[in-house]
């Protein structure tokens, strides 16, 4: 639940969550176990292909939501069901409350429904004097605690067996052992009585199958079957997004849903209910069945060109499972009712700007959610889009507006960076780190040493470094990005050493500017578009075979976001795709284009080296093999570490906004690096270098952190 009024309050809540040792341990265990279980469940299958099938099926349904609703209604009504359509959450609650009263209901049992959480249905029914009992074990636990779920599939993942034992002791008024098997059986027997007494059952549905008017419910515990069988009245509350034309589409989604959610090939139960069946507890022997469809903004969303894909979500919860931030703080702080990456988005639409405004800033943009999403939703992009919308609606904060104004004007921006070199002098003490941070940035940034601005930016070094190519076979534009140009020019110089003497003509277009990713992260869409256009002009794609960059973040931003950002920008839209197609990262260029082999490197064994896979390289660009292969080719003793592809915690502006989270992620990352025994760490992104080197320096400098261009340059044979 989100109650924080501003970012400051939200950050205080986050700090509190970070101090919850049980939560941290539980989340870590889960984060490690989930990818293994998921991979196992997809063994022998092509998950990407399965996901593409889901996307196709869901997109087709979303495009004809109204039509499917009419078809469903006709078929369900023919089978004796009353079908309702509620425009808002309040309307849905009112309809369900009225059904209860009209049928003289006193006691209600419920099976798990995120849609009912969305409408806060229990609150409404309880206010009407009805007794409502959640029967999914996790939901019952959180109901007893009067709190919301912290995970869509495992709502009580934040609680320990001891807390559950205390809770059940209160319920049974008998002391309970903290033994999970026993606690589960206590719940079974306590809840069985509730089933026996209930007059009405409320369920959700995973599918509303239009061709037959059938609802499909996916469960593991079996409570859903009791809820829909024993009481004389059954109400299903279903989001309109669950409409699907056919059993075929439902089965297509089911191929992915349990595997992606819990690493199960199939859940224990999948129940298909069509029509009001015979019911022994009904006076006339026939069940009263109602299906309440919830709109609550879904029909509008379905028509939105950008946000319609949100409705593809099948509520598997995987986006939370892999989110490094969720892992740190848990669901109560990483969502309102819906949690995880999709929760950040849904909160804005279902529960309002006020609940979403802090949340949407808390995305580190690592892309882990997008890579695992069962329905291929571009979650990081949509989160940023909402952040930008909220800023447009509520006004942009001064820091963000200033950043936007500065970055839009390359000369001003670069001038400021040059000026900063002089301003920082008292703070560096002559070292490459800022020893005493200027006031603006100092707060909470002490967890890592921040680098100083270089004495001479790369652009001023270029004319001396430009390699000569007598018979150029390729023409390459070097895109530096701010960090390399002004902070780490030596990394670019190292890259030049590797490229030199290989018949490659390298250019450094001087009008290039910041790629614009920080602006996107800050929700400054207009400025981000403006710098994208500047770079498009500077890096004229017609002139070059490749646009080479050593920054994975710049590369993935230009490659994937520019075409979206400049969509509909007339001629630019055509050109931008051509630019995107030419963008290549350094490791891929060296491995796949230059095709360097062991022959090109010094003989003899190199140092033991660990590797950190930048988010924007391994997921953003899908490059995983090349850097690791290069480390081996160049003679290093590569020592693979755990969770190499988990974010280092940098996230650009994220680390400035949420230093405590950034520090916690960095801590974890450096622990895994230290565990490899290597004292040298390579990575492909200057942002990661900044974060990791700064953290390693704070830890006493045992680990040397280098860009992969530097470690390759150290062993490449001169030409």
């Amino acid at each position, binding site marked *: 639940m989100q109650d924080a009024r501003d970012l400051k309050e939200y950050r205080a809540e986050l700090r509190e969550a970070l101090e919850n040792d049980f939560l941290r341990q539980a989340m870590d265990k889960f984060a490690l176990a989930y990818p293994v279980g998921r991979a196992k469940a997809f063994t022998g299958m092509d998950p990407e292909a399965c996901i593409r099938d889901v996307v196709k099926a869901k997109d087709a349904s979303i495009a004809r939501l109204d039509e499917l609703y009419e078809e469903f209604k006709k078929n369900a009504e023919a089978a004796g069901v009353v079908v309702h359509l509620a425009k808002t959450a309040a309307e849905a609650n009112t309809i369900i409350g009225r059904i209860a009263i009209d049928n003289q209901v006193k006691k209600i049992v419920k099976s798990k429904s995120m849609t009912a959480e969305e409408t806060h249905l229990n609150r409404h029914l309880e206010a009407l004097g009805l007794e409502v009992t959640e029967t999914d074990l996790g939901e019952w636990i959180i109901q007893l605690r009067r709190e919301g779920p912290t995970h869509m599939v495992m709502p009580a993942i934040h609680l320990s067996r001891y807390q559950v034992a205390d809770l059940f002791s209160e319920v049974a008024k008998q002391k309970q052992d903290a033994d999970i098997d026993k606690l589960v059986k*206590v719940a079974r027997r306590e809840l069985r009585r509730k089933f026996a007494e209930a007059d009405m059952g409320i369920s959700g549905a995973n599918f509303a199958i239009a061709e037959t008017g059938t609802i499909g419910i996916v469960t593991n515990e079996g409570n859903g079957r009791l809820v829909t069988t024993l009481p004389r009245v059954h109400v299903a509350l279903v989001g309109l997004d669950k409409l699907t034309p056919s059993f075929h589409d439902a089965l297509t989604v089911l191929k992915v849903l349990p595997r992606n959610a819990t690493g199960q090939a199939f859940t224990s139960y999948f129940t298909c209910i069509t029509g009001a069946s015979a019911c022994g507890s009904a006076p006339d022997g026939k069940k009263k069945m109602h299906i309440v469809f919830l709109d609550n903004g879904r029909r509008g969303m379905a028509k939105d060109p950008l946000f319609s894909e949100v409705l593809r979500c099948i509520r598997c919860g995987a986006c939370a499972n892999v989110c490094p931030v969720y892992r740190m703080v848990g669901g109560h702080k990483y969502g309102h009712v819906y949690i995880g990456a999709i929760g950040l988005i849904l909160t804005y639409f279902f529960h309002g700007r006020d609940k979403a405004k802090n949340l949407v800033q808390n995305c580190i943009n690592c892309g882990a959610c997008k890579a695992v999403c069962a329905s291929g939703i571009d979650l990081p992009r949509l989160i940023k889009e909402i952040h930008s919308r909220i800023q447009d609606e509520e006004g942009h904060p001064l820091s963000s507006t200033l950043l936007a104004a500065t970055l839009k004007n390359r000369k001003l921006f670069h001038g400021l960076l040059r000026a900063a070199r002089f301003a920082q002098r008292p703070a560096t003490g002559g070292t490459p780190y800022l020893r005493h941070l200027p006031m603006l940035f100092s707060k909470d940034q002490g967890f890592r040493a921040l680098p100083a601005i270089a004495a001479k930016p790369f652009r001023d070094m270029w004319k001396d470094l430009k390699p000569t190519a007598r018979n150029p076979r390729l023409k390459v534009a070097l895109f530096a990005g701010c960090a390399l140009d002004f902070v780490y020019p030596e990394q670019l110089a190292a890259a030049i050493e590797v490229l030199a003497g290989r018949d490659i003509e390298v250019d450094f277009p001087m009008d290039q500017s910041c790629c614009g990713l920080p602006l996107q992260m800050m929700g400054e869409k207009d400025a981000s578009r403006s710098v994208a256009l500047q770079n498009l002009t500077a890096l004229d794609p017609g002139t070059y075979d490749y646009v080479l960059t050593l920054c994975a973040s710049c590369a993935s931003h230009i490659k994937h976001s520019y075409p979206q950002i400049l969509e509909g920008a007339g001629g630019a839209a055509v050109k931008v795709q051509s630019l995107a197609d030419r963008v290549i990262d350094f490791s891929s260029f060296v491995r796949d284009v230059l095709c360097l082999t062991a022959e090109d490197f010094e003989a003899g064994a190199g140092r033991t080296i660990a590797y950190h896979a930048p988010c924007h390289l391994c997921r953003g660009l899908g490059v995983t093999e090349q850097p690791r292969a290069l480390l081996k080719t160049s003679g290093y003793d590569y020592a693979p570490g755990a969770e190499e592809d988990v974010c280092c915690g940098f996230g650009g502006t994220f680390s400035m906004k949420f230093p405590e989270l950034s520090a916690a992620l960095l801590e974890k990352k450096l622990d895994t690096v230290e565990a490899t025994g290597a004292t040298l760490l390579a990575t492909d992104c200057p942002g990661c270098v900044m974060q990791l080197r700064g953290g390693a320096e704070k830890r006493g400098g045992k680990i040397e952190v280098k860009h992969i261009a530097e470690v390759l340059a150290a062993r490449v044979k001169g030409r």
Partner: protein
Amino acid sequence: MQDTRELARLMQEKAELVSAKVSTVAKIEDAFNYAADLCATKDACQLLFAGCASPLSSPAEELCETKAPERIIAAPGLDPELFEQFAAVCEKQGISLLSHGLRQKLAGIDIGFTIADYGVAATGSLVQSSNDEELRLATMISEFHVAVLPISKIRATSFDVEEALRGWAKDAPAYTSFITGASRTADIERVLAIGVHGPLELHILLLEDAPCKTHEI
């Protein structure tokens, strides 16, 4: 179409992965004997090992106490002739065989005995059309669920039963369940626990011949 033997093998492998107990029986009579033997040898109340010892609130305890001391198997939906045969087997072991009245047994019965309509080998799932409330309850409130699955009814994937699902639904009302392993939860500390609301064990008896009545689509 995959070879029937191969499908049965895969069905067994996948069902065992979700801790179902799978055996092969030559005739339906063997299935009756299997269920009766299982009922006779199981603990009187399977919850004992994990739960009955734990104290409950008094209303929950009251429901629990309605559980009859006798051993009960419910086999609703069985062909009357077969039911008679099965009842005779049960009687020898002092077990009551019920075909209906399960709403009066919500505290639990020992075994629910059903004949599945289909098996889905890819996931080890049973498909049970259970529009009859008694049949449905037998698979929900029993401590063990024993399901007979004619080998000829095993299909490779869920898409191979799609037509059947549609057929049942068109003939509404319809209540169809895929059952894969026993009832389970991992809601406390992500530790897997079996038998939260439904059966604690699922036994699948792969039947060599298929004389029993199942839905034909």
